[in-house]
C-alpha cells in the first residue's frame, strides 16, 4: 500500500521543485474531489468562508486571474483583485511596502503574478501568510504544471515512461520549467523541441532530452504540449519570422497524421496557425479546453490545502 499524506509542508506554493511527489499526488487527488463540485448546480462549498484572498497582478492576465478568482469563490472565500505596476527600486511604492500593506489589512493569502523571477520567493520571507505563485517571469508557474499533470493523468494514469514533448520557446517559458520539474518528478520522460536560440544551453542537466526536429520529437510521443510564441521574440532575432518558425515548429494535421493518439495541450492563449493549426487545436485529441476546466479544480485544491496548513488563516 502506498502511504498517503494529507498536508503540505510549506506555507507557500512557489515552485514545483519545492513539492515532493507525495505532495503533488495529494494536490491532484484533492483536485479530483473538487472537480466534481464544479459539475454541481450549486458550485460552492463553505470551506474558506471568512478568509480574505488577494489576487495580486503585476502583469496582465485574464485566464489565470479568473481561474483563481472562481476557485476562491467556489470555496466561499472573499477575494479582491489588485493590479499593480512594477515600480523601480526607489521610485513609487516598493514591493515590500505593498506586501506589508496587505499584511496590515490581514489578508489570509496572496496570489501573485509578477514579471520578475523570484518575487514570490522574496515576499514569502517577509510575511507569515501563504504566497501562491501565479507565474513569476520565466521562473515558475506551479499551478499550470499541476493542471497539466492532472489533465494528463485523467487520460494516462501511469506516468512511468510516458513521453511528454514540449515545443516552442522554452527559454522564456515558466510553464515549460514547471512542467519539466513536475513530469520528471512523476517519472515521465520529457523531450524539448524548438529552435536552439529558444532552448537554454544547459537545460539537459535537468534530465530532459533536446531535439531541434519536430518530426523526431513527436515520434512515439504520448503528449505534445505547445507553447505560445511571443511576437517580440522575432524582433529580438530568436528566429527570422513567424512564418519560418511555423514551418519548422508549427503542429499541423499532416505532422500528426501518423500519430493520431497523441494528446495535444497548450497552456493558452493560443496563437492559431503559428504554433498550432486550428484543425489540431480543435481536434478530438486536443485537451486545451479541459486544461482550462481543470484549472479551477487545481486552484481550489491548492487554496484549500494551503489554508489547512497555514497557522494564521
Amino acid at each position, binding site marked *: 500500500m502506498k502511504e498517503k499524506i494529507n498536508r503540505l509542508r510549506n506555507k507557500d506554493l512557489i515552485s514545483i*521543485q519545492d513539492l515532493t511527489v507525495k505532495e503533488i499526488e495529494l494536490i491532484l487527488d484533492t483536485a479530483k474531489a473538487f472537480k466534481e463540485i464544479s459539475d454541481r448546480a450549486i458550485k460552492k462549498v463553505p470551506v474558506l468562508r471568512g478568509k480574505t484572498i488577494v489576487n495580486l497582478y503585476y502583469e496582465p492576465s485574464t485566464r489565470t486571474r479568473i481561474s483563481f478568482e472562481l476557485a476562491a469563490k467556489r470555496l466561499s472565500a472573499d477575494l479582491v483583485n489588485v493590479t499593480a505596476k*512594477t515600480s*523601480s*527600486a*526607489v521610485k513609487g511604492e*516598493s*514591493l*515590500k511596502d505593498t506586501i506589508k500593506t496587505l499584511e496590515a489589512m490581514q489578508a489570509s493569502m496572496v496570489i501573485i503574478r*509578477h514579471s*520578475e*523571477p*523570484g*518575487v514570490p*520567493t*522574496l515576499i514569502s520571507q517577509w510575511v507569515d501568510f501563504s504566497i501562491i505563485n501565479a507565474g*513569476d*517571469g*520565466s*521562473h*515558475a508557474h506551479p499551478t499550470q504544471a499541476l493542471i497539466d499533470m492532472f489533465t494528463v493523468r485523467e487520460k494516462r494514469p501511469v506516468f512511468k515512461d510516458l513521453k511528454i514533448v514540449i515545443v516552442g520557446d522554452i527559454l*522564456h517559458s*515558466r510553464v515549460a*520549467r514547471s512542467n519539466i520539474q513536475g513530469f520528471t518528478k512523476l517519472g515521465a520522460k520529457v523531450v524539448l523541441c524548438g529552435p536552439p536560440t529558444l532552448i*537554454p*544551453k*544547459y*537545460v539537459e*542537466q*535537468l534530465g530532459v532530452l533536446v531535439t531541434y526536429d519536430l518530426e523526431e520529437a513527436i515520434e512515439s510521443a504520448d503528449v505534445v504540449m505547445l507553447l505560445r510564441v511571443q511576437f517580440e521574440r522575432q524582433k529580438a532575432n530568436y528566429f527570422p519570422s513567424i512564418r519560418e518558425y511555423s514551418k519548422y515548429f508549427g503542429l499541423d494535421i499532416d505532422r500528426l497524421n501518423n500519430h493520431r493518439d497523441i494528446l495535444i495541450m497548450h497552456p493558452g492563449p493560443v496563437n492559431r496557425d503559428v504554433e498550432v493549426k486550428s484543425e489540431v487545436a480543435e481536434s478530438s485529441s486536443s485537451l486545451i479546453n479541459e486544461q482550462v476546466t481543470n484549472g479551477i479544480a487545481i486552484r481550489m485544491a491548492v487554496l484549500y490545502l494551503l489554508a489547512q496548513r497555514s497557522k494564521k488563516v
Partner: protein
Amino acid sequence: MDIFIKSGRLINPKSNCDKIVNIGIKDGKISYIGNDDIAASEIVDANGLIVTPGLIDIHTHLREPGREDKETIKTGTMAAAKGGFTTILCMPNTFPVIDHGTLVEFIILKARREGLVNVFPIGAATRRLEGNELAEIGEMIELGALAISDDGAPVMNSGLMRRLMNYTKMFKVPVISHCEDVMLSLDGVVNEGIVSTVLGLQGIPAASEEVMVAREIILCEDTDCPIHIAHVSTKGSVELIKRAKEKGLKLTCEVTPHHFTLTEEAVLNFDTNTKMKPPLRTKEDVIAIKNAIKEGIIDVIATDHAPHSQAEKECEYGIASFGIIGLETALPLVLTELVEKEGISLMQVISMLTNKPAEIVNIDKGNIEVGKDADITIIDLNKEFLVDINKFVSKSKNSPFNGWKLKGDVFATIVNGKIVFKEGDMIKR
C-alpha cells in the same frame, strides 16, 4: 620615535622578507627596521601577529560625489581602514563623473580632509562615461589620477578603445577594462548556466567577458599601452590572459574575493546580494581562478567595493542594483579561503594586496623599508569571527557574506604613520 611596532612577523613581499623584527615610525615614514628596542610615544605589541605593508585596493566605488546616502569618502575610507587597506583607488562613476581635473582634485582634497586612508581617483576614459569622446586624460593624471577607466560602462567602440590606449600610453598609466560586451550580456542579471535556466533569470554568458578580454589583449599588443583587466571571472578569461602573459604583453589582471569564494548556486534563493557584474560563475570557473592565483597568472586581489542602499537591494532580483561591498571582508576571505583552505602562501596573497597593485598603478607604496611611507597593516591570523553586516562601518550593508565564519582579521591599520584602526576600533584623528 612616534610608533614602535614590537616583535611582529614582518612579511614584506617586495624584499621577500619573512622574519620577526621591530619597526619604528617617525614623521609618517618608516625610520627603523631591526632587532633593537627603541623608545617611542606609542608601542604596539605585535608579538604573534603579522606585519605587512598597508593593503592597496585598486578597485572601489566611494559614491561621493552624488550618492552620499550610500557611501562617502569618509565612510568608505573608514571601511578601508577597518579592512586593513591603507590606499584605495576609486572608480569615476560618481555624479558628476570624475571625467575632468576639477573632480580629481575634489576627491583628493576631500580625502585629505576627511579620509582615513590614502585615496587616488581613477579618471574616466570618456566624457560622462558615454563612450563617445575622450575625457581630458592628461590633466586628470597630472592632478593625481592613477589610472583611466570607464569601468562598468565599458567602451564598446573598439576604434575608440584603440585610440584611448594609444593616447594614454604617453602618460604611463594603465587603462583598466571592465570586460563586458554589453550586446552579449543585454539584460542579463546572473551567469548563463544551469542556475539561470532553473530560475528563469536572464543569463550573462561567459562569452560576454571573454570576447572583450580577447579584444583588450589584441589592442594591448597593437598599442603597447598597459592594460589591466578588472575582476576576471571565467575560466576562458584565465586561459586568454595566460597566453597573453606568455607573450610578454603589458597586461595585468585582478580577481575579487567573491569570485573565488561563491558560485552561481548562491543565487538559488534570489538573494540580491548575489547580484553583481561580472556575475558569480560556476564551480569550474572558481577552481580555474584559484588555480590561476596559484600559478601567478592573477596579479592582484581587488574588492570592487560597490555600496548600495537597502531599497536598491531589497527588491525584485531583476531590478536590484549590481554590486556588493567588500572592503571589510576582503582580507578575512583571502586568509580563510586562499591561505587556510587552499594552502596558498601568505607571502603570495600579501603580495597580491600590496606591492603588486602598487606596481600596476606606479606608486611608491606596498613596501616596508626605511624611508618609505609608514602604511602598515597588522594582522591577527588566529582571530575567528562571524561576519555581521550590522557591525560594518560602511554606510551600506550589501554583502552576501553575512553570518560567514572567517579566520584571520585586521589587528591594526597605520596610515602615513598614524594608527587609524586598532583592535576593533576606529581611531579618531
